[in-house]
């Protein structure tokens, strides 16, 4: 295999990169630039800060109950704010998901049955189902378009929004925090 034989893989990488950039542009126009979304993001950030501040506070035994109540209230507000933010993002996510499905169909129509690259390792059986899909013979080092497309989706599609700074703020209500809080509650009881 030479560079000329492997151009299919490069074309797929290029298509996915351009499609992701276009999808992000669309998301920016439909969601990220809207006032509602900016306000929702600011609210999540603000509540994250407030909750962190409350978490750090050291309170006396008498004030512990009211402190716990205020944390509960903030957590509920944060949950609602992040739900609102995700809801606003949903429309564009569905639209982009559908357009990527269409893109996969188009790429599949063009490259099914073609070897687009040669793998440097023998994939395990589950991965072979993807890397050898649509190919003939028993040389499992051959790679079909599906594997390259999936790698692009995992590697490029997830990094571009981060690179452009379009990632939404994460709520700090993660499982590790909830577990720590539960432990603290059990300790005080």
């Amino acid at each position, binding site marked *: *295999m*030479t*560079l000329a*034989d*492997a151009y299919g*893989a*490069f074309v797929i*990488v290029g298509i996915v990169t351009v499609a992701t950039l276009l999808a992000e542009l669309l998301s920016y126009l439909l969601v990220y630039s809207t006032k509602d979304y900016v306000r929702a993001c600011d609210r999540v950030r603000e509540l994250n800060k407030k909750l962190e501040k409350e978490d750090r506070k050291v309170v006396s035994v008498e004030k512990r109950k009211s402190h716990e109540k205020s944390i509960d209230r903030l957590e509920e507000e944060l949950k609602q704010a992040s739900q609102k933010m995700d809801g606003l993002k949903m429309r564009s996510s569905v639209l982009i998901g559908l357009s990527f499905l269409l893109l996969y169909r188009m790429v599949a129509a063009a490259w099914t049955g073609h070897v687009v*690259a*040669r*793998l*440097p*390792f*023998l994939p395990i059986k589950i991965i072979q189902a993807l890397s050898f899909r649509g190919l003939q013979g028993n040389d499992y080092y051959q*790679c079909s378009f599906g594997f*390259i497309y999936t*790698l*692009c989706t*995992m*590697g*490029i599609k*997830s*990094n571009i929004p*981060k690179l452009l700074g379009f990632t939404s703020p*994460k709520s*700090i209500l*993660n499982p*590790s*925090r909830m577990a720590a809080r539960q432990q603290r509650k059990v300790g005080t009881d």
Partner: protein
Amino acid sequence: MVLRSRSSKSAKTQVKSNSKESNADKTDQQQQLQQKATYLLQRVFDSTTTLTPEDAIAAAHWIRQILGIVVGIVYGLIQLTGFTGIMSFFTLALMLPTTLMSIFHELDFDEINKHNNIQTEGLFPAMALFVLSWTLSYTVFLR
């Protein structure tokens, strides 16, 4: 007249103190802007700067992605094959970012992990980028 001059003097001193405060604010803002402007990865290797938990997580993410692309291309170039490549990259991607950052900065991993897990941040997309660049460069440089 005396009263007026006194009041004008006090007003002047107030203005001066106000201008001093605003100057201090300005310099703070300038410093913040300068800190933001300097590249995140540049700050990782500069022990005179500080890294917030968010900065540390973002730096770990990008170090892994760059490592994935570079190591993938190098492995393809030297025609490395087999699961040795995958395992060696996995170990490198897991350990290198945190090791690098702890050489140049004093990091509180408990505090950082409250925000996100720094040990695994960006590991999955980095693995995908590594396999992609390894496969492409291996195919191109295949003899």
